[in-house]
């Protein structure tokens, strides 16, 4: 069986995940109302994360690109009608998720806890930095990061390091999406940098939580279904 960089399995899964991304973007299902200025957290980038985690960076990159293309075609706002904002950043969603998952998956529990401690440190530094310009934003960051890292630690202690790695991969993918898209938006002049920061923090964190929940649910269920079937593969 010829297995080039794009095996049959990777082709089909990339295609199917892209279809889901397109479907999520066309129907209301892709948008979850959250209490932030941008009104909706989107989960349309989750198929790219799932692709990166399950099948590698090539599939993740492809699904991300198709998501970006579709987002560009569907865009009704000048900022997202710009290919450098809509398409270019999205290529990296699946790749970032892949890297995060691969790096963390092999770590045993004590190392994972060390990683969580490092995350806590980073979050503290970030909150302090944000606190220089806006105190309420810093409080928001602190509360949400503590909650998120708390959940991670709980998962690690419960022995579910794999789930924790999935959550971190989802967070990385979402941060790539939010960060790079808003970054390009600023670079191209659609948003002022401080506006972009506010949107990134207040909107990005609920989006990370939502993406983590959905990614974990999908991948865990899929793994259970896959091992349950015990199918032979050529």
């Amino acid at each position, binding site marked *: *069986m*010829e297995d*080039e*960089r*794009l095996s*049959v*399995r990777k*082709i*089909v*899964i*990339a*295609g*199917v*995940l*892209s*279809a*889901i991304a*397109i*479907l999520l973007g*066309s*129907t*209301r*299902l892709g948008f*979850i*109302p959250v209490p932030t200025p941008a009104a909706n*957290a989107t*989960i349309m980038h*989750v198929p790219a994360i*799932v692709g990166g985690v399950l099948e590698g960076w090539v599939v993740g990159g*492809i699904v991300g690109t*198709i998501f970006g293309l*579709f987002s*560009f*075609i569907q865009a*009704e*706002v*000048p*900022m997202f*009608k*710009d*290919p*450098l904002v809509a398409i270019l950043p999205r290529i990296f969603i699946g790749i970032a998720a892949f890297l995060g998952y691969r790096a963390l998956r092999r770590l045993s529990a004590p190392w994972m806890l060390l990683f969580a401690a490092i995350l806590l440190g980073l979050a503290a530094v970030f909150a302090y930095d944000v606190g220089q310009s806006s105190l309420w934003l810093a409080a928001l960051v602190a509360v949400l990061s503590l909650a998120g890292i708390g959940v991670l630690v709980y998962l690690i202690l419960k022995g579910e390091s794999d789930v924790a790695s999935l959550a971190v991969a989802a967070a990385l993918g979402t941060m790539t999406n939010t960060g790079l898209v808003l970054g390009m938006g600023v670079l191209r*002049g*659609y*948003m*002022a*940098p401080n*506006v972009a920061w506010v949107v990134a923090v207040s909107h990005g964190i*609920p989006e990370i*939580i*939502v993406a983590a*929940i*959905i990614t974990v*649910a*999908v991948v865990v*269920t*899929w793994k259970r*279904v896959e091992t349950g079937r015990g*199918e032979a593969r*050529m």
Partner: protein
Amino acid sequence: MEDFELLRYVTVGQYLPGDSLVHRLDPRTKLSVFLFLVLAVTFSTSYTANGILVTATLLLVLLAGVPLGYILGGLKPAVPLIVILAVLQLLFYGEAYTPYGLENRTLFQWGWIHVTNGSVQLVVVSMLRFVELLFLTSLLTNTTPLTDLTHGLEAMLRPFRRFGLPSHELSLVATIALRFVPLLAEQLEIIMKAQASRGADIAYGGRLGFVRTARQVAVLIVPLFVDAFRRAEDLILAMQARCYVGGRGRSSYVRLKFARVDAGAYLVGGLFSLAILALRNTFPV
């Protein structure tokens, strides 16, 4: 979620049949000229260049016979958002942007608000660019059936096979994605109805209850993913059973014909974009 009929929302770049010059062009030509023009639009920041480009794209859309009302009508729900973002851009971006061809003069300043020549140009150029890209995407997707586009894409990527780019495989990904979108939409409808009949009320938990909403959406999304993966596994098995070995040495039933209009379109489109790009820093304003 009262609305179960999802299939009607799924129109990826609706194809509008017609017989214009643009309709008759080879998809490869359309893809290439689209790319050239998008590049020209993306990197033009002056008033003049954008004026030329918006006229050019408008003429092309009229030539293709695509009704302007159709293109602009889809924008209606988004208009308030566009206006708000434009106002924000105008009021707050002033200091950071050096305008093209004009010196950065402050027009109005008050507290946070800082309107300059630069921010005015930014807003106008962004709007024009938005309209140009709208017209260009419409030109591509409204005049070409999507299957033609995937054939065109594969044909254009084929020369890169020698550098390791799996052109056939990539266009197959696109084809599979397009084929699965209506299938999965139907499946999603079935899942929604099944969950609703079991009493799962997908009432969104309000904006503060977004974790609850996420879990309720997961109730729909997870079965959708699982179903999609099952279909994927079936497809993989079917392809392997038919000894699918990728694109090497593969010929195609569909043959794309390159006509004289295509050569003309390539020439005009290419030269025009090249001119705009090359001269982009020499326009007066």
